[in-house]
């Protein structure tokens, strides 16, 4: 019986000595292949007597099973080793930088962001967005808004004029977004609730003024809107926009030709270390103008001031952007310096909403 033992020893030694899959396969074929040594032994079983077979059968089959098992085990071993070797050779330096994603690089200008914030707040109160042209007629920019020709109030506006046309009429760059109030009232039937964000122009340039700036106006016309409602709208807006629990506002009587009564609104704040905080402090900061739409303006828009009424207000978009986000100067808003845009701009996917909060 020693021939079977020594064959087994020999074969198992060959299996474990096989250093790759090809060598292992050669060993397998030599033992278990058609003409392999173990296969040859198995073939002898047929010519044996039943007694011999009874004795030798289990021995040869056992040999075959063990060799088979050793081959399979060695095969797994070799595959593992090969994978290890491959993995050992496959390395990247994960500290190498990847390019910054465009969604991260890109920026939304603070003016666009703030307009989106304002729109979200007022949309919740049912205000639509109205728009109009930058180049306006004198009639819509002034006369229809109750600025009589030659009135000193016009001089407060430092108007940009275009060249006179054949009739000697000069168009103007709108000095406020208020002409859109007139356009809206002439085109729509009350109730009206709109905000009007847009570019406006005044012939003025210094540290705090640029010849082009942005305003948003609000207009409400129905049969009952009054100063009490106006106060509420502005308080709700300021709380939502500046994202504070409370704001204290001061309404001061003032004058605008297109509202009567008119008021300017100051908001209470603290200024510590150059940082402005709302809802606290002792300082007052003027932030907007407002009032009840002047009866003459309503009449100029074909509305009866005894039948309908309403209010309007106007805020400087650039100005409240500066107050909220802390830009110290206005001029860089329009200089397109990528350092400024990168720092003060907003990520493309930071879309302001009331659901998710205006800012992230």
């Amino acid at each position: 019986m020693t021939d079977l033992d020594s064959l087994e020893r020999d074969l198992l030694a060959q299996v474990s000595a096989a250093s790759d899959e090809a060598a292992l396969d050669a060993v397998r074929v030599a033992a278990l292949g058609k003409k392999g040594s173990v296969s040859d032994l198995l073939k002898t079983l047929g010519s044996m007597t039943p007694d011999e077979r009874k004795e030798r059968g289990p021995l040869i089959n056992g040999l075959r099973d063990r060799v088979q098992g050793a081959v399979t085990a060695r095969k797994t071993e070799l595959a593992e080793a090969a994978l290890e070797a491959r993995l050992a050779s496959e390395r990247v330096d994960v500290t190498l930088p990847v390019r910054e994603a465009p969604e991260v690089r890109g920026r939304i200008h603070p003016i666009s962001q703030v307009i989106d914030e304002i729109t979200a707040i007022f949309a919740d109160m049912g205000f639509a967005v109205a728009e109009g042209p930058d180049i306006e007629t004198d009639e819509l920019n002034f006369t229809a808004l109750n600025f009589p020709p030659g009135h000193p109030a016009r001089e407060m506006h430092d108007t940009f004029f275009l060249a006179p046309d054949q009739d000697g009429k000069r168009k103007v760059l709108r000095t406020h977004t208020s002409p859109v109030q007139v356009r809206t009232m002439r085109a729509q039937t009350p109730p009206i609730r709109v905000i009007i964000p847009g570019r406006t122009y005044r012939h003025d340039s210094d540290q705090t003024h640029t010849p082009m700036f942005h305003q948003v106006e609000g207009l409400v016309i129905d049969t009952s809107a009054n100063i009490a409602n106006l106060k509420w709208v502005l308080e709700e807006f300021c709380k939502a926009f500046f994202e504070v629990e409370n704001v204290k506002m001061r309404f001061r009587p003032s004058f605008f030709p297109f509202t009567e009564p008119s008021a300017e609104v100051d908001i209470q704040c603290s200024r510590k270390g150059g940082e402005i905080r709302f809802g606290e402090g002792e300082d007052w900061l003027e932030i907007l103008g407002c009032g009840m739409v002047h009866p003459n303006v309503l009449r100029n828009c074909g509305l009866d001031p005894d039948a309908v009424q309403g209010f309007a207000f106007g805020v400087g978009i650039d100005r409240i952007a500066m107050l909220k986000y802390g830009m110290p100067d206005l001029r860089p808003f329009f200089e397109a310096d990528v350092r400024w845009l990168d720092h003060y701009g907003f990520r493309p996917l930071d879309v302001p909403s009331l659901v998710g909060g205006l800012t992230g």
Partner: protein
Amino acid sequence: MKFTLSWLKDHLDTEASLDTIAETLTRIGLEVEGVEDKAAALKPYVVAKILTAEQHPNADRLRVCTVETGAGAPVQVVCGAPNARAGLISVFAPPGTYVPGKNITLSVGTIRGVESRGMLCSGAELGLGEDHDGILELPADAPVGQAYALYAGLDDPVVEINLTPNRSDCTSIHGIARDLAAAGIGTLKGETLPGVGGEAPCPIGIELAFEPADRHLCPLFALRLVRGVKNGPSPAWMQARLRAIGLRPINALVDITNYITFDRGRPLHVFDAAKVSGGLTVRRARDGESLVALDGRTHTLTSDTVVIADRNGVESIAGIMGGQASGCDETTTDVLIESALWDPTNIAQSGRRLGIITDARYRFERGVDPAFTLPGLDLATRLVVDLCGGTPSEAQVAGKPPESERIIDFPWTEVHRLAGLDVPQTEMTIILETLGFHVSGTGDRVKVRTPSWRPDVEGKADLVEEVVRIAGLDRIEAKPLPRLANVGGALLTVMQKRTRTAKRALASRGLMEAVTWSFVPHDDAVLFGGGGADLALANPIASDLSDMRPSLVPGLLRAAQRNADRGYPDVALFEVGQCFATDRPEGQTIRAAAVRRGSATPAGAGRHWDGATETVDAFDAKADALALLGSLGVPTGGLQVTAGGPSWLHPGRSGTLRFGPKTEIGWFGEVHPRTLQALDLKGSLVAVEIVLDALPLPKHKPTKAKPALAMSEFQPLSRDFAFVVGRDVPAGDIVKAAQNAERKLVAGVDVFDLYEGVGVPEGAKSVAIAVRLQPVDRTLTDAEIEAVSAKIVAEVSRRTGATLRA
């Protein structure tokens, strides 16, 4: 508008503090811009006497003084002023005092080894603007220990209010006092003034020489002669008040007119009667007439301006400024005092045209109380007689005061309707009456007569404002604006949504949003298809901000260059905003444009270890365009891209996007080298511009349901074809031909290789496409696939002249 506290108290009997007065002014609409209270600012400064002044032991220029301050023992002060000497009365500040002129706070110091407990002060150090040569020298009888501000008469605080243009009544201190009285701060004084008689008629005639249509230019003109005056400096109290509000005292006669201008809002003019020849004629100027005015300038006049003339010609520009020739000086003995009414619009226009700003113009263009024309003349006459002596004539009056009072039918409910505030009727009545309105009638509806000094009050809303501003805007409680709907519908229009989305879409491609000026240099406007006369500003703020922009691109290109000049060469900028083709509303379009410079491709800028640095090219711009259109949900099925674009783009490296031969929606490509040269730009620049208004609007559909999705059960397959075709044949034509060859099966065509060179004939190129076939109802047999492939080759060949590459 400035006034002093004591001056206010001439008109207002009040115990209120300066702070209360200032707060009240702001609360009722007379916004306080500033309060200058020198008495408070200079409180620690006292009159003091130098008892001894010894040479400092360690410094030649310093003296060690003992100073009597009126409080306690004399103190030792080291002083560097050359005039510090024993016996001098000057001004002393103790340690702890803030010194405005030096912006320091004093402390006990040791100067060159000698202790100094305070400072002797110069006028400049007190912020009084006098010279630095030495410490103040006061008369020997100045009371030691008294506050210097009190001693020097600087204790009358000055209040400046920011007057809104409607409140002509508060261009006078009397008017301000009236408002304060209505607000409960004291009682108004001096409402009725005694008249002035005269010894004889005024010998100077007045002619209002106007056509009937022009009579409004001077409805009323009053004149009085005062003979035998002595015109010297006005009294110190008057000079102090005028100086406090920023006016320069001239002489008594002139100062009186300035004083009444502020005191009563009644501008006046004084002529030296000896220099006036004949009667006065009030008329339009003749074109070309000129006058040397009191500002010393020669003003050439037109017939738009109203003047007062005599035989010598124009003597005064009505309501704006008098003439030098007939002005009053120290030699004046007979003075003509003029009190007239002028047309506000005419005065405003004349003043603006002549570039003259005066306190008289300021008031006349806002509206002067017509009823005070003669009382104003009387008040001036009395002051002239009081201060300069002389005997007045009777007043000579031409014209009559225009009707200035209105009756307003006023339902008290109007206050609640507009303001949402309930004010008791009695309180409303008191407010209006204290302001000078006359309320008549009882019940819910009354008649309110406006006072002559309130031309701004025209109707009910104005009366509501009067009530509310005096009652207090702070009494109105905020009340919610009722919701119009529980869940609101969409509030933005398609264009508004597209404008917002366009910004986010472009920013998501790594572009930074710029906001550039709506105006560009004229040459830029011309280069980009604009520059028409109708879009040029008549008064640009700078020569390079002169024309309304026809395109967003020039502003972005210049911005990119500015960044490059600052050391940031690889920038990607975009803007979404308005452009102007005409001056009419429909000529204004909203566009979205992007500019990439240097290596600022969508993948990223600068060198990267992963690959060679790329320079931006036309395809980056095209990719931006298509990303934008895709993000906006614009169906791009019918979109065509044709070669070439506007003249500012490189003719061979640009394209135009269109939905048909006439519907151009935008363009993209490399910037033309000539554009670069004209704008003085360097580097690689590509640009894209899409006209958002030109994009087709989404079709309105009855439901929001999307069309049913048909997904084939059969495997798609792909076949590659390489075509050799003329170099100038657009690849797009090959793609289109392949797509159209078998519309039912071809699901997509991609260009995956483009080659020119060895193996391809001169003047030709190889274009390789992969055609994706999607069987719908069965798996294709080899024969069927062969048939489709042959059809594709045939169609591409027929359309483009291409041959299958061997």
